[in-house]
């Protein structure tokens, strides 16, 4: 591939296109203006999805796209450059879907010559994709259909003859179109959320393997390398980062118990009496074996754990992360760590999202306790608080879509619709995506984030930590000394709209570079001024050294995702929270009595975004300012563009 085809430094310069209906493989040069406007990763994929997946497209039909994207930083030595993103229209929510994952796949895709992979169509038989050295082949995977992700990874590596090939794969859950099926890489790194595994399954795409012997070249190598070493040193110099290395994200179990934000019993409470035995100190002391990192990460938050005795003796697996510990632990009343590890491991093998699976089970547990469902619905699976045997049984059924597993496989919004009656009240989701391990009642900005994030109840796109973890100095830097005290008050709505808007914009850049949430969100070691320096050194595009341009890119990307959702029918009515968070005061713990005043934060948020207060539609003026005139035109044509802000 010629140097000239690269729009800027850092990029491979090409997009790989695979149509599984026709079997056609082709490549496309990465348009220079896409790189400049949308950076890469999540932003670039948003542009592609906007153009190619029109409103009303069936997420599990051949017209949906499955995009795997990297960014200009991917594959370099800058801290956490190993992240990648999968983007599609979600079968779980019917709207914008993005699911990021770590490991080593993204860099390998760049070394193979591609910034992104776009899959369309549907294969008549099971296949896998073998990407290498600037090209790709569609290969038969009939023998692999039915395998779990570990078996698939091994079979694919064997078939291509490269033991170091990086593999993305689905298990039986993806094949059986479980609505929240995950895609797994590297044994335990998951593109977990929004059902990307089901999209792969619908296309009969069992796996994607990649091996690359190329390189990533940056525009200003000396400057860039200096920044990479500085980033590494900053991480190693941070006590919190090193604590995260020691304990992993499991640390959050204790942290959130202390602030009353550890979701417990289907998000009813924020404190769990059994937190200690699913907490990081207990895990480190009794189960920890090794610490691992994703590509180019100096922090290394991944843990390998071994169960040395008892019911699950011999189980050796990566994870679980905090979200798995809360979803299968506190939220279902389970305080036995080996059981949580076992469920997490099953999810990795079968390709299931741990959050959606855990919340779907806690939903049925609560409905049963309240007498809203009868025993007959459970088909003999004894789902009740703390019964991990029944949960393990349920996971098996979910993967195969058998018995109650077939209902659970739909996610809580659809389950509630089928069950009817009072059920919806206890269905913990926003826009169809199960709520992650936060609670707006004791972390107000998290409430707003869950309500407005493009993929539904999302903790990755706008989660503010300066309030949750009381980083007052950082709050003063970002918001000004006068606002800092109000910003860090987690029980107050004050300035939370401002904080969420700011963090969404910053994280949109992070997700497009792509770099990791950890050490950007928590601990807050890097921020938009760092991204500005990195982007200009990588790409050689001078305008990125203006930090305002970087902020603008973030806002542009957030608005494009919003436009995609609005085109699908999303309005302010969908930017909501389960009434548990807005009407049911936190029953116990440090945040006892707290509820979320969502409407107030929403008004402020739309105001700051330049969106219409009544409908939540973007305005023409703001979209044009962001360089999205064509998007504004299309929304106007569909009657989904707001007037106002002085626009026409």
């Amino acid at each position, binding site marked *: 591939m010629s140097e000239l085809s690269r729009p800027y430094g850092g990029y491979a310069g090409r997009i790989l296109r695979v149509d599984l209906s026709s079997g056609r493989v082709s490549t496309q040069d990465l348009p220079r203006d896409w790189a400049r406007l949308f950076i890469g990763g999540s932003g670039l994929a948003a542009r592609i999805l906007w153009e190619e997946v029109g409103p009303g497209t069936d997420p599990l039909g051949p017209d949906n796209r499955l995009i795997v994207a990297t960014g200009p930083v991917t594959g370099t030595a800058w801290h956490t450059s190993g992240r990648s993103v999968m983007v599609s229209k979600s079968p779980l929510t019917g709207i914008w879907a993005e699911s990021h994952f770590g490991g080593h796949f993204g*860099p390998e895709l760049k070394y193979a010559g591609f910034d992104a992979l776009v899959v369309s169509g549907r294969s008549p038989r099971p296949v896998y994709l073998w990407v290498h050295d600037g090209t790709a082949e569609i290969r038969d995977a009939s023998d692999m259909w039915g395998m779990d992700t570990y078996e698939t990874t091994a079979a694919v590596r064997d078939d291509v003859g490269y033991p170091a090939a990086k593999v993305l794969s689905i298990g039986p859950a993806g094949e059986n179109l479980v609505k929240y099926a995950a895609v797994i890489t590297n044994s335990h790194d998951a593109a977990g959320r929004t059902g990307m595994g089901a999209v792969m399954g619908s296309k009969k795409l069992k796996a994607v393997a990649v091996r690359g012997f190329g390189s990533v070249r940056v525009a200003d190598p000396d400057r860039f390398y200096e920044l990479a070493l500085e980033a590494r040193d900053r991480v190693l110099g941070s006590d919190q980062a090193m604590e995260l290395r020691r304990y992993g994200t499991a640390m959050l179990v204790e942290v959130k118990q202390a602030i009353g934000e550890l979701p417990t019993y289907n998000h009813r409470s924020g404190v769990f009496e059994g937190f200690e035995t699913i907490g990081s100190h207990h895990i480190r002391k009794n189960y920890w074996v090794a610490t691992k990192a994703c*590509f180019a990460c100096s922090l290394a938050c991944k843990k*390998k754990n071994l169960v040395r005795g008892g019911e699950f003796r011999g189980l050796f697996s990566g994870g679980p992360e905090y979200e798995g510990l809360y979803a299968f632990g506190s939220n279902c009343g389970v305080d036995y760590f080996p059981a949580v590890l076992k469920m997490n491991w099953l999810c990795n093998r079968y390709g299931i999202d741990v959050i959606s699976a855990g919340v779907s089970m806690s939903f049925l547990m609560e409905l049963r306790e309240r007498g809203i469902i009868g025993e007959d619905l459970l088909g003999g699976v004894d789902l009740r608080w703390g019964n991990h045997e029944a949960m393990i049984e349920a996971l098996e059924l979910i993967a195969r879509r058998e018995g109650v597993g077939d209902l659970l496989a739909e996610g809580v919004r659809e389950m509630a619709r089928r069950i009817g009656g009072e059920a919806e009240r206890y269905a913990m989701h926003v826009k169809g995506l199960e709520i992650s391990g936060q609670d707006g009642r004791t972390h107000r900005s998290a409430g707003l984030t869950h309500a407005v994030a493009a993929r539904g109840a999302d903790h990755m796109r706008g989660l503010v930590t300066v309030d949750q973890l009381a980083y007052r100095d950082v709050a003063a830097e970002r918001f000004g000394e006068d606002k800092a005290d109000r910003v860090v008050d987690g029980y107050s709505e004050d300035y939370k709209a401002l904080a969420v808007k700011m963090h969404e914009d910053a994280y949109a850049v992070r997700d497009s570079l792509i770099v990791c949430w950890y050490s950007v969100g928590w601990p807050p070691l890097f921020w938009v001024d760092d991204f500005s320096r990195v982007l200009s050194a990588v790409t050689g595009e001078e305008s990125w050294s203006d930090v305002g341009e970087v902020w603008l890119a973030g806002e542009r990307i957030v608005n494009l995702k919003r436009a995609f959702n609005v085109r699908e029918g999303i309005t302010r009515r969908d930017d909501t929270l389960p009434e548990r968070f807005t009407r049911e005061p936190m029953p116990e713990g440090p945040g006892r009595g707290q509820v979320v005043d969502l409407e107030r934060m929403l008004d402020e948020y739309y105001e700051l975004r330049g969106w219409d207060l009544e409908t939540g539609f973007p305005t023409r003026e703001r979209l044009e300012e962001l360089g999205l005139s064509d998007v504004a035109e299309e929304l106007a044509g569909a009657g989904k563009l707001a007037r106002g802000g002085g626009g026409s």
Partner: protein
Amino acid sequence: MAEQRVLLVSPELCTGCRLCELACSFQHFREFAPSRSRITVVRKEEEGLDIPVVCLQCEDAPCVAACPTGALWKEDESGLVAYDFDRCIGCKVCITACPFGGIGWDPKSGSVIKCDWCGGDPQCARICPTGAIKWVRAEEADATKRDRVARRFEEVSRLITAARGGV
């Protein structure tokens, strides 16, 4: 005699982040390309192991003995097994002879690639975030390992003291 140093590799500390590969390829080719790195981390996924593999600069180096043109030789002063591109005919017999996989072939430059200690300041050791790769004085290499083992006993001793109710 100048002090000799060695690259001390401790696989038990390796997280598999590959920063060493990135630093190495950048130092030698000014690009990020793990396939062109002189150090490679081999991952054993199921076992949870990551093992950095790099030229060990053998005292009695099989690659030196095997090389038919004198393109590889042992430097007395530093202890480095040195390589001269101009004398190399690209026969790759050194790759065959090396018992450790410490020598590779780079098709892009058409040359053997092996660790040259970056001329005395190995970038893999500079960037390694966990101390799995260290640039230490040769006579202290074993002491460095021993020290780490000893530190484990310190921890055990603390636990015992605590269990006895001591301070």
